[in-house]
């Protein structure tokens, strides 16, 4: 795996994970 490949993986996973955590935490907070 090249450095560019790792960069794409890290950025993509990071973006999706942070958005998922943001949405879920906000949804669950509103629910409670």
């Amino acid at each position, binding site marked *: 795996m090249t450095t560019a490949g790792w960069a794409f993986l890290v950025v993509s996973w990071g973006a999706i994970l942070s958005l998922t955590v943001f949405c879920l935490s906000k949804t*669950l907070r509103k629910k409670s």
Partner: protein
Amino acid sequence: MAEPGKQPREAWGSKLGVILAVAGSAIGLGNFLRFPVKAAQNGGGAFMIPYFISFLLLGLPLMWVEWTIGRFGGGFERSTAPGIFETLWRKNRFIKYFGVIGIFGPSVIYVYYVYIESWLLGYSVFALTGKYAACTDQASMAGFLQAYQGLAQNQHFSSISTAYLFFLITFAVNIVILCVGLRGGIERVCKMGLLVLFAFAVMILIRVLTLGAPNPARPEWNVANGFGFLWNPQWAKLKEAKVWLAAAGQIFFTLSVGFGVILTYASYLRKRDDVALSGLTASTANEFAEVILGGSIVIPAAFAFFGTEGTMEIAKGGAFNLGFVTMPLVLQQVAFGQFFAFAWFFLLFIAGVTSSISLAMPAIVFLQDEFHLDRKTASVLFAVVTFNLCQVVIFFNGQGALDEMDFWGGTFCVVLFAMIEVVLFAWVFGMDKAWNELHSGSDIRIPRVYRFIIKYVTPVFLLLILGSWIVQEGWPTLLLHNIPPEKVPFVIGTRVLLLDLFAVVAFLVWLAWRKRQEKGEIT
């Protein structure tokens, strides 16, 4: 008080319940099989650039449009596209007939999807019982699948009877869930199902990540390089239009937008319930399942066992080949392989069930809303019609019936329906009203740039997809260019059947509106 003969309207048990139901509808076989194949074929890491752009310009806007118009229509006790479209454009007498696509399309997809889903149940049982253990290469595993589908006879299966038995079980499971209803059936199954799905997917993911280099003679065949196969960017591919179209198509199909399903689910929300955050949450849950879980299982695992050239060949064979031929072979070679193979097929089966029940909903809810049938009667009526149509797919699978249904129901109708709903939302209903409706009860503020995106960019993007798809695939398929002569009668027969179904749904819409007119509900 409810009017006589009319059933009380169902409702979701919780906000999280509806989000999980929409996520369950979106998370399907495509997340675990189609996405990794498309990414590997279209530039690896570079594919993620058009993929994320499509997510922001096409997927998310359409998701918000469907949630918003669904909740808006639900306020008038309309839960399916014909009624919802009419609430958006009251002056137009014909708009309800455009909504027929939102019932016809998902019903057609349901017919073949539920059969494919039954293969997954069958394979999860075969994994536990070791039925395909004697198949140790791609050719014999492909032969196993063909015999199971009734396309060949060999030592594994002499007829289609086993496949038919699993189809009956799968079909019954779907109908029972649908009969139970929104809160006790769909919501509960999606909550439990997604939990099991994510648990199994994480288990398999950990197993794949710990594979290392399973062949000591080929240390370069390892999981890290498997990720490289998927993620190393091939910049030159970004110049190819087909790569951008593949990314847009993947986003479109993975989010279940354009099916007429999300608007039906959203119609059971209350007027002040949020749709902006809910739509975003369902979309990101789908992306998590697709990019992080789906992207980390099949391709890295296949690479660790078959290397670059082998994986390229496998990816060319398509998503089904990857799921039903390659993955069982890979999992046979790992410790506790039987269990992991069971987990793999069962997670796909769950993903299939949570999607197929959503596909059945528009037709069932239409019968409930417009003809005041109770949930069980509507579900049984739907079951009788689709069960008969399923026989065409099962017994004429090798003759092109399944591909034909996928062409009309799963591709053409979906893109066309999305085009209609976004134009209705932004141009007919009006962007100012639409924007206020989207933000009514909202838990987040959507950036204002999305007003422009929903009004101009998304429709143009959809036109490009529709246009290029018609040129590349639609026109040759319509004119039967790629169909072998011996299959032509079966393909034409399937088309006639689909036309009949469309006509029946359109007639039911006409009948329902006539009844409403007679009652004085509409003028």
